[in-house]
């Protein structure tokens, strides 16, 4: 049976600095909403990076998103929406002291979270196999069944020969571009050029239309994958934290903490979970459905 007598500040206990249970509950909730606000801003930095890079180099995003599986992304969206339903239902069950229902809903939510991570693992694994990783590790080597079979040819870069100050780049067997010489526009700025830069950037796109566009990798395609892994990775860490929180809630439920109708914890974790879902709604749109 439940051990209500403990002194942990949960259950029906109202801490001495609160007037009553109502004020205690509302304070917890306000704190949670402020935390969720900081979560939005936490992801905000990555959304800014996304916006700026996409505005400047849309072709990189169009190219990159062909390597994401829309179906798996949609599946994960559905999984998260279902888990949001069960999380909201868990709050309802806790409010009504339906402990059996609460445990069921918490378990279902947790299983959805595991399912989400499972699908994510499949996706990450296929990126890993093809070397479609973040900037420093971006070494695409695709099977010939993929849409972008011929990733990089020397011609693609030499065609952009009207670009001044930039020499054509060589490609090695792995398909990555090596730059022979860097532009030396030092007179444009007191700051030295940061690094070598391949052609094909920040200017008109190379003449490629329709299907042909798929076969030409724009320069700096690795930027898309850096942003992809940072955004989905940070989101994935939040999903893992959510799994931990649901395990904790299940332990609490088993201990009988919610038998008293004290549902604040369930409510707070559910709020957090909904924000995780909410962010994924945007990630799915912005990364998969370009």
């Amino acid at each position, binding site marked *: 049976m439940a051990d209500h007598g403990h002194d942990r500040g949960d259950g029906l206990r109202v801490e001495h600095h609160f007037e009553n249970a109502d004020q205690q509950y509302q304070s917890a909730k306000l704190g949670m909403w402020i935390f969720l606000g900081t979560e939005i801003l936490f992801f905000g930095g990555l959304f800014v990076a996304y916006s700026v890079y996409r505005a400047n180099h849309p072709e990189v995003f169009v190219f990159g998103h062909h390597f994401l599986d829309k179906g798996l992304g949609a599946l994960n969206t559905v999984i998260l929406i279902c888990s949001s339903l069960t999380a909201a239902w868990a709050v309802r069950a806790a409010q009504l002291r339906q402990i059996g229902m609460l445990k069921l809903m918490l378990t279902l939510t947790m299983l959805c979270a595991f399912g989400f991570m499972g699908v994510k693992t499949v996706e990450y694994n296929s990126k890993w196999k093809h070397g479609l990783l973040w900037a420093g590790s971006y070494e695409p080597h695709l099977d010939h069944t993929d849409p972008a079979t011929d990733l990089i040819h020397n011609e693609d870069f030499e065609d952009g020969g009207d670009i001044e100050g930039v020499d054509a780049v060589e490609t090695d067997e792995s398909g990555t571009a090596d730059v022979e010489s860097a532009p030396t526009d030092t007179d444009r700025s007191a700051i030295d050029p940061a690094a070598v830069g391949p052609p094909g950037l920040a200017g008109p796109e190379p003449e490629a239309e329709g299907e042909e566009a798929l076969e030409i990798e724009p320069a700096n395609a690795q930027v898309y994958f850096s942003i992809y892994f940072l955004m989905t990775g940070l989101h994935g860490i939040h999903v893992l934290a959510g799994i931990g929180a649901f395990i904790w809630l299940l332990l609490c439920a088993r201990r009988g903490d919610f038998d*008293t109708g004290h549902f604040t914890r369930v409510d707070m974790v559910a709020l957090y979970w909904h924000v995780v879902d909410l962010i994924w709604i945007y990630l799915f749109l912005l990364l998969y459905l370009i």
Partner: protein
Amino acid sequence: MNEHGDSFVHIASVKLLLVVWIALMFGTWLTVSASTVDLGFLNIWVGLAIATGKAVLVALYYMHLRWDKPFNALVFLGAFFFLFLFIGFAMMDTAHYQPDLIPGYSPGMVGGS
């Protein structure tokens, strides 16, 4: 024993939860379908509008904001307001640099470095 009382607690009905769930699933289907239609520059805005509609549903009903103290909604919307400022100023800044860009040259963005 429930000292929370019923005065300030809103309990969502199962029916409401399911209706919102159906709306969210429909929204997902709509987003995916809309992405297959070529609307030019409108695609991203249509997608964002649908996503925002879904987000509003989640916030209002699953997160109980509709019945919550308005101050909580203000805190949450405040975060989005500052996010809007953040993205807005960053975009204005990057737009100002566009005329200065050397075509085909983007320093410091080489892979494998």
